[in-house]
């Protein structure tokens, strides 16, 4: 029988061999069977570490934001102190019990789901420890949600620098994977804001690390997918709080919008940039500023170079395009409905004052969960250098069109720091990116349709296949899909880090199914 290997979507997209080049079983972890569990629990209890084993307690952590992977831990430990976590890790090494660390649980491939073993809930350690108002550095426990960090900092008119547009993601989890914001093109990813960390190693030592102190560990922990230690405290750069003034420019096709985004970032003319689309029909370039002065400079020097339209101009153009194409009226109605529902939520009265947006991340985060969030947060990404970005967006868009009638793309740039190159090695930052990396998230909108797990998984895999073909990186804010890790990073990088992992974590118990 002839089997076509050129096809990107097999005849049966939900079959066991549907993931091209990836045996299906590699995408989900096998369950740990509970060897020595009773001895392990006893050892912990002797050290006064509470471990919850009731179904109602462990079931809270059944799945993650992706909603595709489901697994029950044998027991849950809610983080209370670095000492408690050190005791946990020492016992885990001794009895070879897997430990899965969870912050906000916003992973999408089950990285924060425990397939047996212990689930360590870091939100138990989520308090701000010290705010250095003059030095602009905050020391916080790492299980804190970015939202709560912002809440505390705002009482002193301060703010974090950049964080994911999802406020229930945790600081520790974000530092382990990157974290992108609409100001990442200016300031870098969230992980770049880390000054120093307190880490519990897989063998249970409590270590402080930074670029100056235990720098090798710091390199491995930042953007290290939780493989080399558990971040218990973090010192982060912060800044004075400013509301922002947002401008929107509308495009009818992807390429000019993406090109304008690249141009804007290179010009350093804006404080915030990003692209948010309704399919590939209504494409919005977001531009925003921290100060009136920056906004005025942009309006005087750069705005005229943009090819986007204002809201009314674009609306008329779109209407003219649809009126002669009755077969697309359904799409037009969807766009109208979407605009009516979404736009007020992107400019809520309570968060707007004198045309400025206050607490942008709250606004965006609530909109994300209301308009894009669902039981399955399926957000495969592609990350490329500047040169490949248009192709990545267009090819990923074609995959979205194939799978879903309605979807959104979200694109941002990430400023790269030369001094942080070592941090990026195991990460989603493409090794050939210079100056900026660019990321595009491809987000289906379900509109009440129930898609099967395998259909959603096939969609994700086809996006990642684009990454393979473009020889670039692909990632999600939750981490790297295990089945793709060697293809994304290459054997040399994976082998190097596997060796480091085996040295650091002899029993291979910490977040064991995420990468290795």
């Amino acid at each position, binding site marked *: 029988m002839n089997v076509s290997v050129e096809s990107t979507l097999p005849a049966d997209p939900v079959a066991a061999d549907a993931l091209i080049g990836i045996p299906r079983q590699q995408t989900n972890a096998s369950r740990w069977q509970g060897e020595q569990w009773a001895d392990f629990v006893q050892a912990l209890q002797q050290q006064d570490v509470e471990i919850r084993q009731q179904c109602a307690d462990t079931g809270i952590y059944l799945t993650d934001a992706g909603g595709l992977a489901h697994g029950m831990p044998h027991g849950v430990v809610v983080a209370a102190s670095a000492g408690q976590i050190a005791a946990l890790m020492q016992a885990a090494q001794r009895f070879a019990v897997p430990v899965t660390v969870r912050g906000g649980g916003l992973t999408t491939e089950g990285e924060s789901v425990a397939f047996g073993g212990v689930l360590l809930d870091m939100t138990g350690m989520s308090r701000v420890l010290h705010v250095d108002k003059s030095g602009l550095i905050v020391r916080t426990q790492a299980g804190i*949600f970015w939202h709560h960090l912002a809440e505390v900092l705002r009482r002193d008119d301060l703010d974090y620098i950049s964080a994911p547009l999802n406020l229930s993601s945790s600081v520790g989890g974000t530092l382990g994977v990157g974290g992108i914001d609409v100001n990442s093109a200016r300031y870098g990813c969230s992980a770049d804001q880390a000054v120093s960390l307190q880490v519990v190693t897989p063998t249970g030592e409590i270590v402080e690390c930074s670029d100056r102190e235990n720098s090798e560990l710091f390199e491995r922990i930042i953007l290290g997918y939780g493989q080399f230690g558990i971040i218990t405290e973090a010192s982060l750069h912060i800044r004075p709080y400013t509301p922002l003034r947002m401008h929107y420019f509308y495009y009818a096709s992807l390429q000019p919008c993406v090109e304008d985004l690249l141009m804007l970032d290179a010009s350093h003319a804006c404080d915030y940039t990003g692209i948010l689309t309704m399919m590939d029909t209504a494409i919005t370039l977001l531009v925003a500023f921290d100060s009136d002065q920056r906004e005025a400079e942009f309006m005087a020097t750069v705005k005229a170079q943009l090819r986007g339209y204002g809201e009314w101009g674009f609306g008329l153009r779109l209407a003219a395009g649809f009126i002669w194409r009755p077969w697309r009226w359904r799409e037009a109605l969807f766009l109208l409905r979407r605009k009516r529902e979404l736009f007020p939520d992107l400019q809520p009265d309570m968060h707007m004052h004198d045309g400025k947006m206050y607490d942008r991340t709250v606004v965006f985060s609530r909109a994300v969960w209301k308009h894009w969030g669902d039981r399955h947060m399926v957000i495969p990404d592609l990350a490329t250098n500047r040169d490949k970005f248009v192709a990545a967006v267009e090819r990923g868009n074609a995959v979205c069109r194939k799978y879903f009638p309605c979807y959104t793309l979200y694109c941002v740039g990430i400023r790269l720091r030369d001094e942080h190159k070592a941090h990026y090695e195991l990460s989603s930052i493409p090794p050939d990116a210079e100056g900026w990396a660019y990321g595009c998230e491809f987000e289906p909108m379900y509109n009440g349709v129930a898609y099967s797990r395998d259909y959603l998984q096939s969609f994700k895999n086809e996006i990642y296949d684009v990454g393979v073909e473009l020889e670039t990186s692909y990632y999600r804010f939750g981490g790297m899909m295990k089945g793709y890790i060697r293809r994304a990073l290459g054997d040399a990088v994976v082998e190097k880090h596997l060796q480091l992992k085996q040295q650091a974590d002899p029993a291979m118990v910490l977040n064991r199914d995420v990468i290795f």
Partner: protein
Amino acid sequence: MASFSDCYGCSLCLLSCPMWLQRRDVRFSPQGYAKAMQHGATGADMDQALSACIQCGACDLLCPEQIDLSGMIAAALQQAEAPAAVADAAEPDWFAMSRTPALRQRLRADDLYIIDAVCFHAGHTLRAPHYDQLRRQTGCSMNLDLNRMAVATGIGSRAESLQAFDVNRQLEWLLLGRRFQRVIVENPADQRMLAQMTGKPVLSVSALINLPESGANRSETEHA
């Protein structure tokens, strides 16, 4: 109406939940209740966690699935026969008071105005714009968090029955980093504790409205 089985664990309800903010333990949150119930827990199984809820209603507004979380908690409390945070009887209409011209005239930019969270959240659609306008017109600060939910107070008179909830810590969180010279409270339940903690004048809305014109700007400590 969505029910507890529709909770998929987004954690948004935790962000303004006074109980979770104190405990940092997901069992003490609407999400924790819903997830536990999805796994067969009954009200009786959760009685300790349930009795820590002060039923401020913020979670109802934050849930993207629009689950009736307050209703879910009330039903579970009834099932558990656990002590609940029952509202003080015959509470006056603070919202109506907040709309009087006298209040607008007498509020100052250095006032901290404490909205009653239960009433605010229960009528959020109507009330949020009003308080936003009041804040902008007078320049006063309010007990609103980044989600524009009211940091809950108004539980002082029930503090003893709410053993699982630390009212002092809640007020400390409310006051953290806020700069003000006078506190105006809608619900006088926490008036005494606020006066003790801040050392500043604490007036109820009704007292402020009824102050004689000459006394409206006088610094005067009033205890409940």
